């Protein structure tokens, strides 16, 4: 019973560290199983070529999902991701060397693109916190606004990114590792540190865990909520820029499909939508599962219609099976 495992919780550090980082084994196991399965089922799955394509396909999703983790830990949601990515990709491309206008801000354009995301995050946070609107609705609205702004900037024709040094970030690679993946890893590391060592990170857990109680402790909740949304927005901004680097254009539909995939990645990793539990590390696992699944199903040549169905089933099974032993009799599920 509880007392005993309390006292005995000192040793076995390594395993605990891994758990704290990637969550309670479950999803990790699911990932390993999938990788094992596909490696057997397809000769090409475990090749260098596929390895690097897995990395590229993972990187942008990972960045989006990492950002999303911060608001989901609060128990909130950010549906504006696709709109934000659209806007930031266009802002970025239109400010860098492009075939629409003669601006050429180079790396400053990248910053501008990312900041566009941060601004959306700030807007989301402020509206949500100070007008007390559920994040779900705020971000549904701002998402539309993001698409709208992008549509106006787009002006009927996707502007192309002409800055070769930037383009190289998109498809270049460093020692076999795609540069996009390297960016993603950097984002991941920063996010891990922020979540473990800063107030935004830590209070995020507490706010998501029990906001009422958090109020009693006199912490300025609003500030940290807004900050979390800014983090999410910024990540979406980065993702928008990454996508533009990868595709060589700024586009309204550039974020298409990332929203639900990212939410799935986060929750699949083991971050609870009700808030309080989870973390960026777990999101890595979740995103990896999704990427491996999509890639693997194509490799073993599953019929496209069936792919959607299989993905759906595997996601549910992964969570249900790995969580089966954790079931409790008295429990709020949501």
């Amino acid at each position, binding site marked *: 019973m509880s007392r005993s495992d309390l006292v005995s919780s000192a040793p076995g550090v390594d395993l605990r560290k891994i758990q704290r980082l990637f969550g309670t084994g479950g999803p990790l196991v699911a990932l390993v199983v999938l990788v094992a399965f596909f490696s057997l089922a397809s000769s090409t799955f475990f090749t260098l070529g596929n390895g690097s394509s897995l990395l590229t396909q993972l990187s942008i999703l990972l960045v989006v999902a990492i950002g999303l983790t911060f608001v989901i830990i609060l128990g909130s949601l950010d549906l504006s991701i696709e709109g934000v990515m659209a806007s930031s990709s266009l802002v970025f491309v239109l400010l860098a060397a492009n075939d629409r206008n003669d601006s050429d801000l180079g790396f400053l354009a990248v910053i501008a693109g990312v900041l566009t995301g941060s601004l959306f995050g700030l807007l989301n946070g402020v509206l949500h916190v100070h007008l007390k609107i559920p994040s779900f609705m705020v971000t549904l609205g701002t998402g539309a606004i993001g698409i709208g702004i992008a549509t106006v900037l*787009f002006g*009927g024709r996707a502007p192309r990114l002409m800055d070769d040094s930037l383009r190289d970030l998109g498809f270049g690679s460093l020692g076999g590792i795609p540069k996009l993946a390297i960016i993603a890893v950097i984002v991941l590391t920063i996010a891990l540190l922020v979540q473990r060592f800063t107030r935004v990170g830590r209070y995020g857990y507490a706010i998501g865990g029990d906001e009422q109680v958090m109020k009693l402790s006199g912490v300025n909740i609003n500030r940290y909520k807004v900050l979390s949304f800014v983090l999410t927005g910024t990540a979406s901004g980065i993702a928008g820029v990454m996508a533009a680097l990868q595709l060589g254009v700024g586009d*309204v*539909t550039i974020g298409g499909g990332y929203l639900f995939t990212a939410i799935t990645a986060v929750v699949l990793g083991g971050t609870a939508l009700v808030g309080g539990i989870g973390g960026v590390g777990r999101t890595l696992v979740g995103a990896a599962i999704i990427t491996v699944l999509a890639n693997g199903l194509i*490799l073993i040549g599953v019929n496209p*219609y069936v792919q959607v169905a299989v993905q759906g089933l595997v996601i549910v099974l992964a969570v249900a099976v790995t969580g089966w032993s954790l079931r409790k009799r008295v429990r709020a599920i949501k």
Partner: protein
Amino acid sequence: SSASDEQNVPGGGAESTGEVALVQGIRSLSNSYHANWAEGGDLFGASIGQDVVVLSDEGDSQKQLSLVKGLAAKGQVFALNIDPNTSSDTEAIVRAVTEAGGYVVTQWNKPADLNPWDVSDNWVAHISFDGTGSGTEVSQALFDDMGGEGGIIAIQGILDNVPAKQRFAGLQAALEANPGIELLDDQTANWSRTEALAVTQTLLAKHGDKVKGVWAANDEMALGALEALKAAGLAGKIPVIGFDAVPQALEEIQSGENRYVATVSTDPWWQGAAGLSLAYQAASGAIDVSKLTHEQRAFYAQQTVVTTENVTDFLAAPSAEAIQVDIDDPFARIVSAIN
């Protein structure tokens, strides 16, 4: 006006106000194909000195239908030139227009067994493009560029979309004619650049250097595939083709550096201008719909395979004069009756 729409006299609303409202129905202005289509409509509007309303449904069938129904509110006869979201929407749209006493020209999507003359004179015509034919043609261009030898991968559009299917059918027809070419794999990327990039990467990893050509059901996806090729250092080594003639594809074809071999142009400006003109002429009584032939009311229009030879003709919007001929005779580009 409610009296007039109870018993729906075609053009019943006409009495209320003289002028015919001009309306374009497109998915959204956020893709260059439909943007150009809208541009074409404006050219027509300008030619008769009238503004054109653009309804964009953001790919939401129900919204599109509500918008069309909303047109009745203006209590004014309208001429609608619309690209139904999917073929399941077409019938509902044309019936709604009929009830409102407007006039509509639909393009691209319609159920095979439903024809304008079965519904009403308010459904002026349906214009489409024989994806199978152009599909065969453009695929041939790809195969020729490959020297008639080697394997290709095909990236499909949204699976329940008619043009997507025709285009793929075209590819298969071309494969029949070219035994030297092998279709290694086909996958959908839902018309999306991003998805196409991922799919191509995966298929390249799967089939390695057996891949000698990339076939994509539209330019968006072809351009996505091209980025995948760039990343793999294969751009310029492996030829690519697409459909729709979006500006960036045309530029790629023109520059030629990345071996973007060909695309197919349905001339969105024409679709916007001629389609709207046809609906307008019906609404204003210039043409009597009941006297039109079946071929005139459901036809495949011209489309062109764009390669380095002819690319320059498609780079920019046509001039007002250039398009006037099509405005005057919307039927000028009939290729054949549908089915």
